[in-house]
């Protein structure tokens, strides 16, 4: 099982001046995301049951929510570096 990302670093330099420097502590946000996901899970399960019983066309919203969370957790290790003559953009998820 992969550890979810703990920190997101964003750095943007334009015209030789540092424009943006963000350090986002994802390890503090994950508990909040978990709480919101649990609340959303309750609604999606109810929606899926209602749609399944009424033979609705799409009743996989719970799976979509869980798959989306899994995909977000797998972004650990993503790194994007763009070095231009005037602009530098670095994003790393670790």
């Amino acid at each position, binding site marked *: 099982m992969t550890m979810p990302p703990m920190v997101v670093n964003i750095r943007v330099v334009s015209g030789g001046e540092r424009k943006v420097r963000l350090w986002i502590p994802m390890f503090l946000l994950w508990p909040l995301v978990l709480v919101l996901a649990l609340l959303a899970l309750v609604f999606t399960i109810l929606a899926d049951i209602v749609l399944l019983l009424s033979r609705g066309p799409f009743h996989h919203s719970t799976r979509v929510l869980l798959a989306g969370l899994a*995909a977000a957790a797998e972004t*650990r290790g993503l790194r994007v570096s763009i070095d231009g*003559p005037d602009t530098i953009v670095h994003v790393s998820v670790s």
Partner: protein
Amino acid sequence: MSEERSRILTMLAEGTITAEEAGRLLDALESRAQADAGGAGPSTAETAGSTTAAGGATGSEPETAGRPPKYMYVKVVSVNGDNVDVRIPLNLVRSGLKLTSLIPPQAMDQINQSMSEHGMSFDLASFKPEDIEELIMALREMEVNVDSKNGDNVRVYCA
């Protein structure tokens, strides 16, 4: 002197590129040589203005032969100084491919039809989890290397 280094110096002598651009290209060449020496990348064939897709793990080390690749790397070295370096975790690709099983049937039919119109007769609905693993293992042996006439270099590989 390697062929690529000689080509870069020739372009500098002809005035096609500036000294700064030649320096960047030489640095990119060195880092690529170090990555090839230290990593498990397959052998590459590079010609000006051509695209190659290498098959076969002729350059892979024994200890990495059975290990699936972890990242996909996309590296662009441009003569104009626009360099791009992207590293994508292949677990993210796995998660994305698994999401295809959640696409509604009507949308899936439209997607398959559109793909077949563009020459890719591929049924996304029949994609199984074991196919994903096989695809990712095959990506370990894939490398795309593009050298353009103006000196830009694009490299895509998995390791």
